[in-house]
C-alpha cells in the first residue's frame, strides 16, 4: 500500500480567486500560475493535516465523475508539480507548520 501524503499551502505564496480559477504567485522567482477549478479545490483544502487521498475522495470524487485511483494519481502528480514551484509543501507526515521553501 502507498504511503499517505500530506499537502499544505506554502506560507510564502500569494493567492486569490478570480472567477472560477485561482491565481497563485510564488515569491520564489515571481512566477504566476492559474489553477483550474479542480486544482483550486486541492489548493484550498491543502491544510497539511488531511491526507491527500482523503482530500481526493471527499472533495474531488464527490464533485467530478472520476475513479478514485485515477484521481489520486493525478492529484499526486499535481501536488508534486506545485511543490516543485514552491507552492505546496508535501510530506509523508502531517504538516503542522509548513516551512518556507528556500
Amino acid at each position: 500500500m502507498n504511503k499517505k501524503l500530506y499537502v499544505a499551502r506554502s506560507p510564502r505564496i500569494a493567492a486569490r480567486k478570480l472567477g472560477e480559477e485561482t491565481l497563485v504567485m510564488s515569491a520564489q522567482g515571481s512566477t504566476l500560475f492559474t489553477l483550474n477549478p479542480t486544482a483550486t479545490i486541492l489548493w484550498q483544502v491543502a491544510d497539511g493535516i488531511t491526507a491527500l487521498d482523503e482530500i481526493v475522495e471527499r472533495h474531488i470524487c464527490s464533485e467530478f465523475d472520476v475513479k478514485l485511483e485515477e484521481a489520486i494519481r493525478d492529484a499526486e502528480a499535481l501536488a508534486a508539480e506545485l511543490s516543485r514551484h514552491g507552492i505546496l509543501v508535501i510530506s509523508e507526515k502531517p504538516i503542522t507548520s509548513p516551512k518556507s521553501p528556500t
Partner: protein
Amino acid sequence: MSLMKEIGERALGLGVPFSVHLDLTYRCNEQCVHCYLDHNDHGEMTTAEIKHLLKEMAEAGVFILTLSGGEIFLRKDFFEILECARDLTFCIRLKTNAVLIREAQAARLRDLGVESIQVSIYSHRPEVHDTITKVPGSFRRSINAIRFLRSQGLKVVIANVLMTENMHDYRGAHALADELGAGFTLDPTVAPMMDGDRSILNLNIHESALHDTYRDESLVGSVEEFCAPPRPADESNMESLPCSAGHTACYVSPYGEFYPCVQFPLSCGNVRQQRFIDIWRNSEQLKEVRSIRLRDLSSCSQCAHGGSCTRCPGLAFMEGNMRGPSTQDCEKSFARTGIPSANLLSKKGKTSPARLVQIQLVPAVTGSRLSGTGSRAIAIAS
C-alpha cells in the same frame, strides 16, 4: 498575449480591482527635491483601520498590493500591517528608500514572502543622490540595504527619476543596479505635486536630453521600434481604455482617500466612511473615468499619435481636464518621433507646462498555467 495581460482582461471583465497602491504614510525621512507629497501627517489611518481595509480589499479580489509612501518603514506598525497582508495572501510589492532596512528587516521581509522591493536610487554617485534626498549618508544606507535584501534572495528594483540634477547619471545607476543584482527602472518624469502645485516641474530635463535618452538602446531596446513614426487611431483604438486606473487598479491614501491612481487625484470616496467595494462599484467619479474612450477626447482622437500615444488620464486631469490631452505625454511623443501632437500644434508659440515621460524596465512576470484537461481528473499544462 502574456498571462498577466490575460488575467488583467479577465479581472476587467469580472469588475475586479486586481491591483491596489496603498500609501501607508506621507511622512518621510528624506526630503527629495522632486517629491509630489506633503510630508506632514494630517491624520493617517490607524493600524486597525488599515487591517480592516486590507480585509475588505482581499474580499473584493485584490491580488497585487503595493505598499508605499512616504517612507513605509516610518510606521512603527509596518511589520504588523505586512503580516496581516500576508495572512490575506496578497502579492505584496514595496516601495521604499530602504534607509531603515538592516539585516534583520531584510530577513523578515524574506520570511514574509514579499514579491519585490523597489528602492529609490537617483545616482551611482553618493554626492548626487544625497543632494537630491537632502540627507547626507542616505546613498550609503540605501545601497547597504539593497545588499542585505539581495543577500536574502529578494527581488529588488532600483527606481531612478531622471531630472536636471542627475541627468547624466542614469547609465551609472543602471550599471550599479546590475552590479547589485537588481532590476532598474528609469522615469524621466517629475510629476506635479498632489495639491496641484506645478513648481517642481522645472526639474524636468530639457527636450533635447529627453530626445537623446529615448535613443539609448540600453533603455528602450530597439530605437527604431521605440521611436517609430506615430500611428493615427483606428476603430479599435477609438474604443480602447487609456490605462488600468479605475478599471482594474486604484489608489488609497494614508487618510483613506480613494483615487483611480496615485497620479490621478480625483477623489472617489473615503474608505473610512464607505466600504472599499462600495466605492469601487458605485462611485460616480469612477463610473465617469470608466466611461471615457479615445473617441470621446476631442483633441486626441484626431491626433496623428492617436494609435500609439500613451496619454495618462491622471496627468490630463491634473492639467485641468481628464478628457483633454496630457501635454507631458504629447512632449513624450514628440521626443520619440519628432512629430508634434495635435495639442502641441494648437499650443504652438506658447510655453508648455511640463515635460513628463515614463520608461519602465521592470522585468516581466513569467507565467504558467496549471489546468485540467478532458481525459484526466487533474492535469497540468504549461
